[in-house]
């Protein structure tokens, strides 16, 4: 009986949390498309996400591309398929590793910062102050972050794709002694638009999820510094898990074989 009650209670809490998140998402989305928007806030968030994440995303992509080339060479040479390396690198980067790794890095950087900033604003009553100044906090705080996440992470992933492929090229040409021209040829030969597009769709959704989790957990944090800390952790963990789950779902949508 105690077990049933506990299960039931946990289930109710889960339903309540899901409902609260759905309401939060709906309200925030509606504020993204209803004026007035706050261009200054949107710009500030875009710079924060797009520009200041470049170093960490670039480094991640560079070393991922490099290690991909190295790994596939040592693996593929077992069955004389070294020629496929360039193709493997470009497909892995554009379809999977570019968006997923950039998403995870941005989740750590931006999701955490958003949750901490909004959480601090919550516990110091700054969010209440916004309301009393006739400014809707969802519109002023949440909508700009969602818009920035949705638009800037795809741009970051374009950069990550380029740098990642370049990393593979460096290892291929300078370490594994491929001919540069033929490596580049091989990179383009089997690449299709859908490879890049699916990666960018993923990036947009990941960016949205990162901002949503950062805002949601920050917005509902309570109880001082400890609460803000918990919100930050929850934002990063939930965004990371959602990225991995959605990555699978979107891949299924784009590439499920008929």
């Amino acid at each position, binding site marked *: 009986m105690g077990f049933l009650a506990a299960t039931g209670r946990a289930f109710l809490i889960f339903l309540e949390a899901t409902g609260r998140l759905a309401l939060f998402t709906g309200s925030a989305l509606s504020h993204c498309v209803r004026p007035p928007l*706050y261009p200054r806030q949107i710009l500030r968030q875009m710079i924060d996400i797009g520009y200041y994440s470049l170093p960490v995303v670039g480094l991640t992509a560079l070393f991922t591309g490099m290690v991909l080339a190295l790994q596939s060479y040592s693996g593929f040479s077992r069955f004389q398929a070294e020629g496929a390396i360039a193709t493997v690198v470009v497909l892995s980067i554009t379809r999977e590793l570019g968006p997923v790794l950039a998403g995870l890095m941005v989740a750590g950087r931006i999701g955490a910062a958003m949750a901490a900033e909004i959480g601090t604003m919550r516990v110091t*009553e700054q969010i209440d102050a916004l309301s*009393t100044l006739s*400014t809707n906090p969802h519109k002023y705080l949440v909508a700009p972050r969602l818009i920035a996440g949705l638009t800037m992470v795809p741009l970051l992933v374009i950069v990550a794709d380029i740098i990642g492929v370049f990393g593979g090229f460096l290892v291929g040409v300078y370490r594994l002694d491929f001919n540069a021209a033929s490596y580049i040829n091989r990179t383009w030969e089997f690449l299709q638009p859908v490879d890049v597009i699916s990666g960018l769709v993923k990036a947009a959704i990941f960016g949205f999820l990162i901002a949503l989790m950062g805002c949601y957990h920050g917005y509902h944090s309570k109880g001082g510094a400890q609460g803000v800390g918990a919100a930050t952790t929850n934002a990063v963990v939930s965004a990371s898990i959602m990225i991995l789950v959605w990555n699978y779902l979107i891949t299924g949508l784009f590439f499920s074989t008929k």
Partner: protein
Amino acid sequence: MSTPKIALKNVTKHFGPKKVLNGIDLEVAKGESLVVIGGSGTGKSVMLKSILGLLTPDSGSIQVDGQETTRLRSREREKLLHKFGMLFQGAALFDSLKVWENVAFGLIQGAHMPRAQAKEIAVAKLGAVGLTPDVAELSPSELSGGMQKRVGLARAIADEPEIIFFDEPTTGLDPIMADVINELIVQCVKDLGATAVTITHDMASARKIADRIAMIYQGRIIWTGHARDIDDSGNAYVDQFVHGRADGPIKMQIKAL
């Protein structure tokens, strides 16, 4: 009698198992300055936030200018909040914005005033609370507690509200700075001709600011009267609070619940 500016009838609010407001009845007349006194954790802030709609009461009625506000939609709520200004307990300044942008916030975002014009007004309002124009360019984290309260006050009055709430305006300040803030509050309220509700447990502050005083205890208003009658209220609870005695009808919860 004319409609009161603010009228609360039997307002209740609980958080989890804890009943914070237990049926608040309170009226504030237009233009008067009401001070609500009461111990820490008795629901004073929750009461103010319920009036502003930052918290939704469980039951009861809250009217502003005769208009019921407990079931307002967010657009109407935004419009209603134009009437209000609030000084928060911790000042609640936006730390990502400069001091003048804080003061001008309601003018720029709420009233859509051009930034240059809003800045002029902000600097003037800072002057009204005794801050020089060079403070305007600082960030809130560079200010002392007393200065932050002043900026919060300037922000609360910038949009010339009809009703101003002050949540513990002197808590955490030294006695001299507390008195400066009290005088600023009295001055600002008089200049605007506003209706004011101040929450405090600082009796010196209450005496200075109040036309009328109400005492809240266990989520109810247990006494209201003129400020000059506070010393012979005939109410044992009020007496104990006013004189700050440990023994009396109010028993402090020393052990945690």
